[in-house]
């Protein structure tokens, strides 16, 4: 067999260049970041024993502390449920308004799009700090911070799902003379409901985890007692709280995986 080509490469030449260039840039910026953050992996590995010692010093967990943590844990879960519920409800109109399959007006679409981006942008700790200063300490600022934060994520996910739905199914409903609400109810909802539920559960898990941070700035929940125990250097108590939290998160994740499988 005789080739007429002089050189047949596996990749077209241009692509090879682009890939190499990208990789080099990624690596360069990486090393630049390592330099800027004064990363020193030799130091890290030579101090690995300290990491393990510290982890070990958290064991055995002080099981006697668990009863003190149950109350805050329950509070955390309740906060997360309430915040998730609020954001699930509010996100429905928001995500419809920021999906270009539903909203044809470009200005409206971009306004809500950017609003969502804005909400997702602000770190939860900043939100919590702000709400604490507005509403005082307690669980309300916590609920609000979580609501706003998860609302941004949830509405973004949902609106992206709505944008990927099959527009032909909507067209069919339109062609029967259905109005906007009917098109949404008969065409959009069945297509996005499973993802919607699964996102809701995902955000709930996220909220349970996030409430840890909230406690550090006076917005209630289990983070608050972790903060205190850390300040007293009571690592065995901290570990007990963490194990409780871990158990709760795994439980929630298992249940929500189960529910997710059922609906999707």
């Amino acid at each position, binding site marked *: 067999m005789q080739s007429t080509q002089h050189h047949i490469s596996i990749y077209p030449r241009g692509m090879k260049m682009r890939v190499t260039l990208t990789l080099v840039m990624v690596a360069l910026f990486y090393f630049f970041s390592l330099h800027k953050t004064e990363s020193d992996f030799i130091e890290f590995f030579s101090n690995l024993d300290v990491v393990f010692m510290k982890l070990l010093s958290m064991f055995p967990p002080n099981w006697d502390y668990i009863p003190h943590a149950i109350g805050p844990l329950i509070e955390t879960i309740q906060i997360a449920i309430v915040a998730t519920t609020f954001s699930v409800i509010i996100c429905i109109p928001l995500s419809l308004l920021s999906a270009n399959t539903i909203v044809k007006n470009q200005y409206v679409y971009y306004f809500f799009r950017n609003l969502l981006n804005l909400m997702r942008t602000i770190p939860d700790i900043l939100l919590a700090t702000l709400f604490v200063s507005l509403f005082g300490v307690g669980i309300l600022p916590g609920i609000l911070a979580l609501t706003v934060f998860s609302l941004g994520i949830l509405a973004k996910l949902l609106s992206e799902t709505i944008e990927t739905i099959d527009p032909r199914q909507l067209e*069919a409903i339109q062609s029967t*003379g259905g109005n906007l609400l009917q098109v949404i109810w008969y065409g959009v909802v*069945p*297509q996005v409901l499973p993802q919607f539920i699964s996102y809701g559960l995902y955000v709930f898990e996220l909220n349970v985890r996030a409430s840890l941070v909230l406690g550090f700035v006076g917005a209630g929940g289990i983070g608050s007692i972790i903060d205190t125990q850390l300040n007293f250097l009571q690592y065995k108590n901290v570990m007990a709280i963490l194990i409780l939290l871990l158990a709760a998160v795994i439980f929630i994740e298992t249940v929500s995986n189960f529910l997710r499988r059922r609906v999707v």
Partner: protein
Amino acid sequence: MITFKDVSLVYPNGTQGLKHVNVTIDEGEFVVIVGLSGAGKSTFIRSINRMVTPTYGELYVDGENVIQLQGKELRKLRTKVGMIFQNYNLVNRSSVMKNTISGRLGHTGTLRSILNLYSKKDRALAYENLKRVNIEEYVYQRADQLSGGQQQRVSIARVLTQEPKIILADEPVASLDPPTSHQVMKYLKKINQEDHITTIVNLHFIDMAMEYADRIIGMRDGEIVFDGPASEVTEKTFEEIYNRPIREHDLRGSE
């Protein structure tokens, strides 16, 4: 009666979908539109129920110029005109029944339809229509569990449930294999004959067009280049419409 009076349509990107189309379709006719890909068949059909809006001319459906319609009026037009799509466009995750009954949306109040409060009559009608296309046994199945031909039959049932005066079908058999294609066309023909519903169908396959149409309209580049009874049509006619010899894939093949 549907009347196109000098209708043109230019898409926002400048493509001319229809060019000065003049044609009248009478009640109860079974018209098949043929033409190459891009000829404007879909544009023609979708103008009738205003899924696209002609940019020039007048288009009368039942004596009413539909080009200006908006909002409620437009929805009223659409309840009169049923549409069948190439890809069936069923809501995959909903049941066959829910898909079929959605044909009645235009006749039902928003609240009632959202709460699933259809009258007994409506539900019986939907079921009746599923029976007419022999698909009643799947009534509670999810739509995406059916084969292509079955799905298309559900979409016919949906349109029938709408009780339309006109049925538009945009390449209803393009995704189906030959035997199923014929089956679907037969159901369409049967309904056209039994209920006297004006039926306009886009087809790619000339043998099917000749077999089922009363009247054939040929399009090329947004213009009507042939219009006449199916009996007058020969292979030559198609070669004119297509501007090239007929090939094997222009035929669906027999049943």
